[in-house]
């Protein structure tokens, strides 16, 4: 058989559509137009939760920076801020200026922390012999 077996698919009859389709579709569309908007104003819980003044977020970011810088540990910096307020600490991580400060601190703290892992052990010095004098 040489001819394309699919050549006559287009010749199959077109079934007639149920007459109700147009009526049902237009009724559904009309109901959608009458119905109140599906998307109602839902309060953004995330935004609400992080609704912290910019100055507070900046202070928290600074605390994270100082904590991370001094301790060399990211978690220490976060701890400082979280002890003040977890909400403020979280805000520090999403508020642009505070984020910059906090991330800088976290980066420096991380470098200090990771760098510390590769430092050689401190040299050990011979301890002075214990005095044999019982009075000492």
């Amino acid at each position, binding site marked *: *058989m040489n001819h*394309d*077996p*699919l*050549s*006559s*698919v*287009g*010749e*199959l*009859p*077109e*079934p*007639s*559509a*149920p007459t*109700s*389709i*147009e009526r*049902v*579709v*237009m009724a*559904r*569309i*009309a109901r*959608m*137009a009458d119905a109140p908007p599906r998307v109602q104003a839902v309060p953004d819980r995330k935004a609400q939760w992080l609704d912290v003044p910019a100055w507070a977020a900046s202070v928290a970011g600074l605390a994270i920076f100082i904590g991370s810088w001094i301790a060399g540990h990211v978690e220490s910096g976060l701890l400082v801020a979280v002890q003040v307020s977890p909400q403020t600490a979280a805000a520090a991580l999403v508020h642009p200026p505070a984020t910059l400060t906090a991330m800088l601190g976290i980066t420096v703290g991380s470098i200090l922390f990771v760098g510390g892992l590769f430092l050689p052990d401190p040299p050990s010095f011979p301890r002075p012999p214990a005095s044999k004098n019982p009075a000492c």
Partner: protein
Amino acid sequence: MTTHGTNDEPAAVRAAVHAVRSGHADAFSEIVRRYQRRVFGLALMVLREPAAAEEVTQDAFVRAYTHLDAYDTSRPFYPWLATIAVRLAQNRLVHRGRVTEHEAPAAGPDVSDAGATDPLSSLISSEDGRALWRRVAELPAGERSAVILHYRQDLGVKDVARALGVTAGTVKTFLFRARQRLRRMAADAPGKENV
């Protein structure tokens, strides 16, 4: 073959789309009237159940209405509508569990006796036509959809690819395999009906 070329999109359809977008929802009835038979035929060929095909047709039009903003007016309307319809039909097939990763060609309860249960078969007057449809109905879902969209609905390979969410190469592969499979079926058929 029916001529549903994509380049001769009626001006009435473009006008209706513009009117609906301008807030005249009633203008959508022009689109429904014009394409309901074609969309229903597509859904029926994919699903092979009139009730399911009717529901898919309705859903396709409603979805087209709600997503009309996403329609690119520089492209013909029907391939976009067919894409919605064929994806809804495929979703329904998946939910019915009739599409599996390696669907057996003979899957589905209405395949072996398509002439008796398939509503389309009753419309086909010639025995050759019935035999052809019986074989097309036996094709795996992807190949069947590609065959229907390309040969039946006159969509180009790129439009078929967009509708099925595959590449144009995959569509060509679907069509090539479908041709081979149909040739094999015709050769194996008792009496070797001419397709």
